[in-house]
């Protein structure tokens, strides 16, 4: 064992159990006695800053370093704000928000990264490291909310529609024909509806706009709890957290059940590690973190509550929860057989009792035993992208690949030192099992990456700090910083790259709101694509058809004669109701970037309808237009 420790009262160096120090024989005997005691004692808690080192030796210098770090963070925030100030989200190009980046913004990220690793190298206090992460979250995830001022992602808007439904009717309907899945797992929506009622109904869109920041702060706390359950090395904990946020490019932290269920899942695993870790049968002995263990009696009620909320709020997270807990127990990573049994019972109980209508209708959607095909389905989703979106697609993939490579290096490092933690490894690998169960609408690979994230970050941090030795501190900090500098551009591409079509202007929202307020119940609404602020109000009253989601031959017929073909679609609805066609800016941008129709197709449709005498313009806000097809007996 090689360990060197500096102490305040002189140079005390301990190597391989030998203590050298200038001083008398009695003094040496006293030190040897103390070292014999300390050798049998647990390592001091790093989180409590009780490990002797240069911080203890030079408290004033340490405080100065802390202040410098905080000043650097403030400067980075100022640079970022100055860089983005006055930017117009309409100027985004095919690489999304990245097109609006300026030199001060890049400098801000470089400064923040450098400051974080300097702080880590000097073993800064935990709050200093936390300030860096908070700043990173505020800058990266707060910028779209502040700059756009509207809810990001088209699919967030239909989640608002479910909350709107609960607020209007005071209930959910598990037999409803449209968006039944959300009514069958209504936890997130019920909670949001209650929160909205308490804060005021007019605040719903504000809450949804800032949800990403809130969920990421929640993720930070949850992931810190999990990593502190796995190790007591503060460097690994905070570097792991840094890697987690620098590689989380998926954007699954938006206003959605998944956004809520993920941090809850992380907390659940943290509780599992703290209360149910099996220490006697690991492949290699691991150090058990001090002072964080929980009694199963304390942890179990919390775990049951978390399982119930996860099981009632989402579809794939409960599946992941079952897989993780069963895997951990089956391969003897954790004890407590009743924990996975409870998870299975709650998940299946909810699916086959409350959500039985949806579950029984969609059992055939489970694609068990086709892991390769399920993975390929996800990759194929980005097969039709164009221009800068190709780069965006590769940016995300590179970020994940780099994270996995670092994690593999970390696993090798700790395996070589006979410190590989079986439970952490099992929980890292268990999301892969999802590939063998479902394709999840062609998104399962994204979910695998999401659930792997915290453990990938943990092992990636272990690649830099595989043990507690104090040597090579500069080299290790530089390695971490270099990895960040390599990964960060790819992360930014993956995370911000699609914002050109994830952004919705207030004018678009106004037009869509007008449509949902004025269209008569049971009307048919034809939309260019689903990339618009969709179904956020009175959604159950309308039948919505998307041109982009039709089969290719059907799309081609529409493009050949839009006015005539869309009239036929709209005439299929109730005869005494007007039909509506909605074309928005975001639909056009989305189609031009990721297809599936030719570039400019929606512009041509809009032009054709505006020239047709059969259609009237209901509202035109500049960014969106609603055409109304008047029919005999229909009221405008």
């Amino acid at each position, binding site marked *: 064992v090689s360990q060197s420790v500096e102490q305040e009262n002189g140079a005390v160096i301990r190597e391989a159990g030998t203590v050298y120090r200038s001083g008398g024989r009695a003094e040496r005997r006293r030190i040897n006695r103390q070292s014999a*005691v300390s050798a*049998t*004692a647990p390592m001091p808690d790093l989180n409590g800053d009780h490990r002797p080192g240069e911080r203890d030796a030079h408290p004033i210098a340490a405080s100065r370093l802390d202040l410098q770090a905080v000043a650097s963070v403030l400067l980075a925030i100022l640079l970022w704000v100055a860089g983005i100030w006055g930017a117009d989200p309409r100027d985004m190009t095919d690489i999304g928000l990245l097109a609006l980046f300026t030199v001060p913004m890049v400098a801000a990220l470089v400064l923040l990264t450098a400051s974080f690793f300097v702080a880590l190298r000097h073993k800064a206090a935990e709050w200093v490291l936390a300030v860096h992460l908070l700043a990173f979250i505020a800058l990266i995830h707060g910028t779209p909310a502040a700059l756009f001022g509207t809810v990001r992602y088209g699919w967030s808007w239909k989640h608002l529609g479910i909350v709107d439904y609960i607020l209007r009717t005071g209930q959910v309907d598990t037999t409803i024909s449209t968006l039944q899945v959300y009514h069958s797992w209504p*936890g997130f929506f019920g*909670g949001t*509806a*209650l929160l909205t009622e*308490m804060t005021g109904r007019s605040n719903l869109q504000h809450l949804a706009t800032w949800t990403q920041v809130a969920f990421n702060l929640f993720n930070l706390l949850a992931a810190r709890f999990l990593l502190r359950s796995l190790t007591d090395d503060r460097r690994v904990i905070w570097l792991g957290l840094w890697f987690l946020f620098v590689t989380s490019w998926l954007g699954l932290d938006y206003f959605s059940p998944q956004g809520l269920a993920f941090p809850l899942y992380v907390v659940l695993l943290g509780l599992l590690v703290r209360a149910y870790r099996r220490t006697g049968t690991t492949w290699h002995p691991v150090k058990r973190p001090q002072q964080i263990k929980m009694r199963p009696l304390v942890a179990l009620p919390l775990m049951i509550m978390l399982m119930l909320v996860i099981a*009632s709020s989402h579809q794939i997270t409960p599946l992941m929860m079952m897989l993780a807990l069963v895997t951990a127990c089956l391969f003897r990573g954790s004890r407590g057989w009743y924990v996975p049994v409870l998870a299975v019972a709650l998940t299946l109980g909810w699916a086959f009792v409350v959500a039985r209508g949806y579950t029984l209708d969609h059992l055939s959607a489970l694609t068990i035993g086709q892991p390769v095909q399920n993975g390929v389905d996800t990759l194929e989703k980005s097969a039709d992208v164009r221009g800068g979106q190709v780069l965006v697609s590769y940016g995300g993939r590179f970020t994940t690949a780099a994270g996995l490579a670092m994690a593999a290096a970390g696993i090798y490092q700790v395996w070589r030192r006979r410190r590989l933690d079986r439970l952490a490894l099992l929980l890292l690998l268990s999301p892969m099992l999802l590939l063998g169960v479902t394709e999840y609408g062609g998104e399962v690979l994204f979910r695998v990456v999401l659930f792997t994230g915290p453990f990938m970050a943990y092992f990636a941090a272990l690649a830099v700090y595989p043990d507690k030795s104090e040597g090579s501190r500069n080299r290790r900090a530089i390695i971490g910083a270099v990895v960040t500098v390599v990964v960060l551009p790819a992360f930014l591409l993956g995370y911000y790259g699609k914002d050109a079509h994830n952004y919705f202007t207030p004018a678009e929202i106004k037009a869509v709101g007008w449509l949902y307020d004025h269209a008569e119940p049971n009307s048919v609404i034809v939309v260019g694509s689903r990339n618009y602020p969709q179904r956020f109000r009175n959604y159950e009253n309308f039948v919505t058809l998307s041109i982009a989601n039709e089969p290719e031959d059907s799309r081609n017929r529409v493009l050949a004669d839009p006015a005539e073909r869309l009239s036929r679609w709209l005439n299929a609805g109730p005869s005494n109701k007007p039909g509506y066609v909605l074309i928005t800016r975001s639909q056009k941008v989305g189609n031009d970037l990721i297809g599936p129709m030719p570039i400019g197709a929606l512009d041509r449709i809009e032009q054709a309808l505006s020239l047709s005498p059969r259609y009237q313009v209901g509202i035109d806000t500049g960014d969106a237009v609603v055409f109304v097809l008047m029919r005999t007996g229909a009221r405008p």
Partner: protein
Amino acid sequence: MGRNSLRAVVLAATTLTAALLFINDTTPARLPVALAFALVIPGLGWACRLRLRDRGDTLLFAVTISICLLVLVGEGMALLRLWSVTGGFLILAAIGALGVCLPQPFRLPLLSRFAKARTAVAPKLPPGLANGSAGHGLDEHLADLPPRRIHYDGYGGDEMDHRADEQPQHRTEERPHDGHASAEQQIPPDEREKPATGV
């Protein structure tokens, strides 16, 4: 945070939110107040009862428990078609109040016998084990002991840390947490082991 301060915080936040809610206030103050109440207060007392040593973890559990309660109450009312914002608020407020008003588990009559048994056994245990709330408690010690054979070869340092964990008789002084002194701290100072400060 002491119990009385905790009660004061929960009471103040609940009263303020109730006032804003029941007078149907539309000022900008309602959003932050109601948000802070809904996301922290119902779980705050319960999180503090966990006696976690870390403030970040305590905050995490205050938020986690509050969000879980918000979800369960909201979806319960929606599924049972009993939607009522007043009812939902009152349930959350009641659970939050219970978290700070209920006596500690070992002060309940049913569990007091067990607590007494612990107190009787504790002096015979190695130092540090009587402090059950932090994790290194009697039940865990007993659960861990039978199947495990403890080796100790006299070497210290990093590689032996996991074995050191399982040598409770050598456990050194632990810091008090949340204001509750551990049993070890009740030992006179001269009888305590020296704190392990490196070498």
